[in-house]
Every structure is written in C-alpha cells, then in structure tokens.
C-alpha cells in the first residue's frame, strides 16, 4: 500500500508530560480563546493555562482524587478543559458525560462510572446534586463556570485555593503515571440499551492526537465547537491542536457558533456535516434572496471546468461568496457522520478544502483521515501511523495504540467487541489500491445523524415499550427527504390488541402521540421520535423472539 509522508510532531506518553511539554515549548503564545455572550474575546496563553491546571491539580490532590474518577458534565468552556487536564495529569480518570442526556441517563452514567466528584455546568448542577444525595460514592459536586452560591464549590474557588497551595510551598509530589493507565472514560452509543463506558489510556489518546497532527496540516488559528465530551472533540480538536501549539478558539453553544466563527477569523475549523450543510444552505438562501441563484450556479459550473483544465485562479465573485459565508476559513476537517460529496465539491470550488476523516470512540477516535494533498472526497482517508486496519467479512477491524483498554467493568461486552487485538467497528467498508478507506454501511443498528450524534434504537424502544398500549416497537431512521442521507427518528408500533379493543386506529395514534410526546420532552431534539406508524400485523421474530429489524 502507498505510504504518505508525515508532518513532524511531538509524541507524549502521559498527560503530566503533555502539560509540561506544551508549557515549555509554546510558553506565552495564545493557547485557548473564547467569546462571551457580549462578544468580548477572552483567552489564555499556554503558560497561563498550564499554571491553572497545576493549581487545580493541587486541590484535587488535597481532595484525594488521584486514582479516583472525576466526572465532567458541561458545555464546552475553558474550565471544562482545566478540570480534564488537572484530573488526568494527577492520575485521576476523567469521566466525560454528554450534557444532552436525560436526567435518568446522566445519573446512570455517574453511577456506573464510579464517579466520586463531578464538575457540572449550571444547567446540570441540580441534576448532579440530586444524584449525590442518593449516591454513597459521589461526594463532591462543583460548579464548572459562572457564579455559584457560597456553599457550592466551584472551579474558580478551587483555582484560588490552588494558587495559595502553590505559593505556600506545600505542593505534593507528582504521581507517576504509566502510559497504559486509563486517562478517560467516554460514553458511546451502543447497540445495547445503555451507552457503553469506554476506557482510553494516556498513550491511546495522546498518540492518536499526535498521529492526527502527523497527517493533517492545520493553520495557526483553529476554531472548534465540537463537544469535548466526545473523543472527536477532545482528541482531534483540542489535544491535537495544543500539541501543535496553535491558537484554539472554542465555542460551547450551537446558538453562537456562527457568530463566534465570524469573530474568531480562523484558518481551520473542525466540525460535523450538520454545520457544513448549514453554511451551504445559508449561501444558497442569500443567493435566492438576492435573486442570484442561477448566476451562482453558472459560476460554480464554470469554475469546475476551469479546475479540470488546471486553472486554479479564484473567481472574484466566488471569493466574495466565500468571504461572506466563511470569512478567512481555508480548511475544514469534517467527521462524526457521513458528508455528501456534492457540498464538499462546492466548498472546494469556493476555495475551501474539506478533509473527511473516520473514527470511533473505542479508537480514541481517529482511524483514517484525508491528507491535505491527497484528498478523495468520497473516501474517509488513509490510515494513521500507529494504526492498522483489516476488512473481515466486509467489517472494518482496527488494531493499534489508539484502541481502548476495554469497556469499564464490562469484560463480556469488551470480549464481544474485540477479536484478539482487533476492535470490531461494526462499520462495513473497503480499501482502494492507494490505501483510502470507504465506509459503505453499518453492521450495528445505530442511527447516525448529521451532527455526528448516534442513537441506538434499542434505547428508545425500551422507553416506548413501557407505554401500556404498545406490544412491540421498532425505532429506525427514516429518510426525511431533505437530502438522501438525512434521517429523522420514526417508531413503528404494534399496539397490544388486548388493550386497544374498541379503540379506532385514530384514537390509538392520538394516545400514542401523547405518550411519546412525554418521552420526547426529556430528550434532545435529535433523539425525539418525529413519526409514528401503526402496524396491523406483529413483527416477524427470530427463534430467540428478537424482532427481525430488516423485515420490520
């Protein structure tokens, strides 16, 4: 298989080394910046950020957290990163929890991950406080950012205390961390009813981040709105960027993502297909509102022909369209879900390169990515340096330093997912002669959305099955018709004949809609059921009484 040259980059074996390394190497360079609600830019240098990590780490040591599990539940913010870095670099395990889960799931996650402390944003603070009241293990609930009541511990108070410990010289001796030690537990959407807690080691996460840098050349200013509680956000958009020493702009709120991107004027952005489609829609909406749709279409066609003949000079009007829609952006790295080729092609014609990658939480996550100079739009790219891939019965299997150490406290699940040293991704794919990977389908029952979020239907089916009227249900991703691979969640319900006697199908549907609306209320939009079908016949089942999904 063809070998592609790699960019030089540092490799770290553990997070304590990473913090020291980036402080020494990049010192006063700007590290992380963000915008407040009032559009004010705030930021810290590498030296300042590492100093804050050090202070927070001192407090965590005093609290006896090294070796323990520290959960983080919050939208992206600078303090999120501080807690993560302080925890993992003092030998604790960071448990990263998705804020968009229902209260019940958040509590289950805190419980099953054995968290002893949790840092929560104000939106999730009360949920965590309620969980702590009932849990014997969860002792500390602290606020990530914002103002807190005097009796609630917070990152800002811990930072003051940590600085005091540093000044007083009573800092404790740093822990020795081995590269194989678990640094983080991250939850994945699984095919089982509950998300699976994936254990990722220091070496797995940091090697994967450096490998990403070795493959992709990014600009000096990088923008990310990817959630840090997912590995794509943390490894690719934070760790890889800080190892490289770039100026990282972070955003934690979908509502301000477009505004912050404009303010940050980045060269590179890491994102999911949803945002690229939104930019694409805005471009065409603006063209339509100005009555210039046909003109833009013609210009893009003309530009495509020019490209074919090797003329790369950018048309001035297209350059204007790009400036208005994407500002200074030149490179977009896209992952989390499949991205349609047409939109990427259009972005290329506007002068913005889109590189698609492929990853999975259990692989820290990155497995393949397209290269700046070797980019095949319909492929998810070539393999990372410390990673191997093979195809077995069409399924993609991965082996390498980036593979998880296992699912936390679930040896059976781990054994199911592994085939020796190889991790079974559940994705179906093929590799071409140049070493580019193509994803062609899925073996698992996951519904994948444009924002990169995944939903395992079983999780929702379990909830819907609790409705008395429902005998059986299958949840699936139905084509929404907006674009070919756009999906919305639908439920096909077989009502219990014993409970629906005398009811018209309209009444059944109305009752189901009411009950499902209630379930929807506790779910983020992408997990809400948008469509209900009623079946008159039972589902076909296997001998084990499992519904045959493909026949449903």
């Amino acid at each position, binding site marked *: 298989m063809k070998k592609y040259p790699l960019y030089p980059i540092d490799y770290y074996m553990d997070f304590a080394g990473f913090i020291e390394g980036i402080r020494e190497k990049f010192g006063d360079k700007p590290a992380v910046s963000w915008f407040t609600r009032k559009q004010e830019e705030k930021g810290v240098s590498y030296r300042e950020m590492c100093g804050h990590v050090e202070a927070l780490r001192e407090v965590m040591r005093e609290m006896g957290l090294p070796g323990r599990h520290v959960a983080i539940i919050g939208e992206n913010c600078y303090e999120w990163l501080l807690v993560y870095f302080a925890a993992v670099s003092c030998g604790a395990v960071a448990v990263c929890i998705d804020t968009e889960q229902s209260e019940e799931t958040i509590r289950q996650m805190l419980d099953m991950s054995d968290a002893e402390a949790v840092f929560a944003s104000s939106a999730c603070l009360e949920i965590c406080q309620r969980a702590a009241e009932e849990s014997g293990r969860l002792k500390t609930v602290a606020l990530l950012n914002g103002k807190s009541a005097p009796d609630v511990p917070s990152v800002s108070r811990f930072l003051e205390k940590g600085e005091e410990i540093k000044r007083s010289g009573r800092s404790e001796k740093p822990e020795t961390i081995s590269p194989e030690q678990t640094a983080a537990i991250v939850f994945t959407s699984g095919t089982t009813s509950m998300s699976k807690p994936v254990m990722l080691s220091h070496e797995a996460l940091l090697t994967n981040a450096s490998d990403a840098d070795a493959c992709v050349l990014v600009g000096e200013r990088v923008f990310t709105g990817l959630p840090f509680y997912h590995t794509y956000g943390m490894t690719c958009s934070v760790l890889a960027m800080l190892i490289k020493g770039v100026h990282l702009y972070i955003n934690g709120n*979908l509502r301000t993502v477009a505004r912050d991107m404009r303010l940050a004027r980045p060269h590179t952005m890491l994102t999911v297909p949803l945002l690229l489609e939104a930019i694409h829609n805005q471009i065409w909406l603006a063209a339509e509102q100005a009555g210039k749709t046909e003109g833009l279409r013609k210009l893009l066609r003309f530009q495509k022909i020019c490209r074919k003949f090797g003329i790369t000079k950018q048309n001035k009007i297209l350059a204007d369209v790009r400036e208005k829609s994407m500002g200074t952006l030149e490179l977009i790295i896209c992952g989390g879900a499949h991205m349609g080729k047409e939109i990427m092609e259009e972005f290329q014609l506007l002068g913005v390169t889109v590189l698609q990658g492929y990853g999975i939480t259990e692989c820290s996550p990155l497995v393949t990515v397209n290269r700046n100079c070797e980019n095949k739009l319909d492929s998810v790219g070539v393999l990372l340096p410390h990673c191997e891939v093979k195809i077995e019965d069409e399924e993609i299997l991965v082996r390498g330093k980036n593979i998880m150490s296992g699912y936390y406290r679930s040896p059976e699940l781990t054994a199911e997912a592994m085939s020796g040293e190889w991790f079974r991704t559940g994705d179906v794919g093929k590799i071409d002669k140049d070493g580019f990977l193509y994803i062609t389908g899925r073996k698992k029952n996951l519904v994948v959305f444009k*924002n990169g979020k995944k939903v395992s239907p079983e999780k929702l089916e379990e909830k819907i099955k609790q409705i008395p009227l429902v005998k059986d249900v299958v949840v699936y991703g139905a084509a*929404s018709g*907006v674009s070919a691979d756009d999906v919305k969640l639908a439920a096909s319900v077989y009502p219990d004949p014993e409970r629906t006697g005398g009811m018209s199908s309209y009444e059944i549907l109305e009752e189901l809609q009411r009950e499902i609306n209630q379930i929807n209320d506790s779910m*983020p*939009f992408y997990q809400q059921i948008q469509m209900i079908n009623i079946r008159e016949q039972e589902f076909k089942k296997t001998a084990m009484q499992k519904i045959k999904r493909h026949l449903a």
Partner: protein
Amino acid sequence: MEDKILELIRKIIYRVTGKNTLTYDTDFVQDLGLNSLDIMNVVGAFEEYFDVEIPNRDVWQMRQVKDVIAYMEKKGITEV
C-alpha cells in the same frame, strides 16, 4: 400580543432558514424540517431580542410555535 410574537417568530425563522409559512400549530421539526442547528439559531435570535437565556433543556420542549409563546409568557415576557 400573541399575533405580534407570531409575526416576530416568523421574521426570525425567515431570516435564519428562509421559511415563512407559520401558524400557532406549526411544528418546527415536522412541518418546517428544521434541524437542531436551525432551532438553536432561532433560539439564539430570541435570546438576543428579549435579552433572556433559554436553557437547552427548556428548548427541547418547544416543538410548536404555541409552545414558544407559552414559554415566553411563563417567563413574564408579554411585550414585543
């Protein structure tokens, strides 16, 4: 007041998504086909206009135009 809010929601949705058919019963996802980003952009425009903060967990429950109006009233916003 309700008509004024409806008009305002219509304007905001048109600016963000280009769609302008709206009644009290319009469902953002099912009828307008808005995705989570569209909805957050609409909510962001609301927050800016009324200078309020709307937590994500509250947003999940606003499926139809009338839910937004009810939410605003609950928050004490009755003037546009």
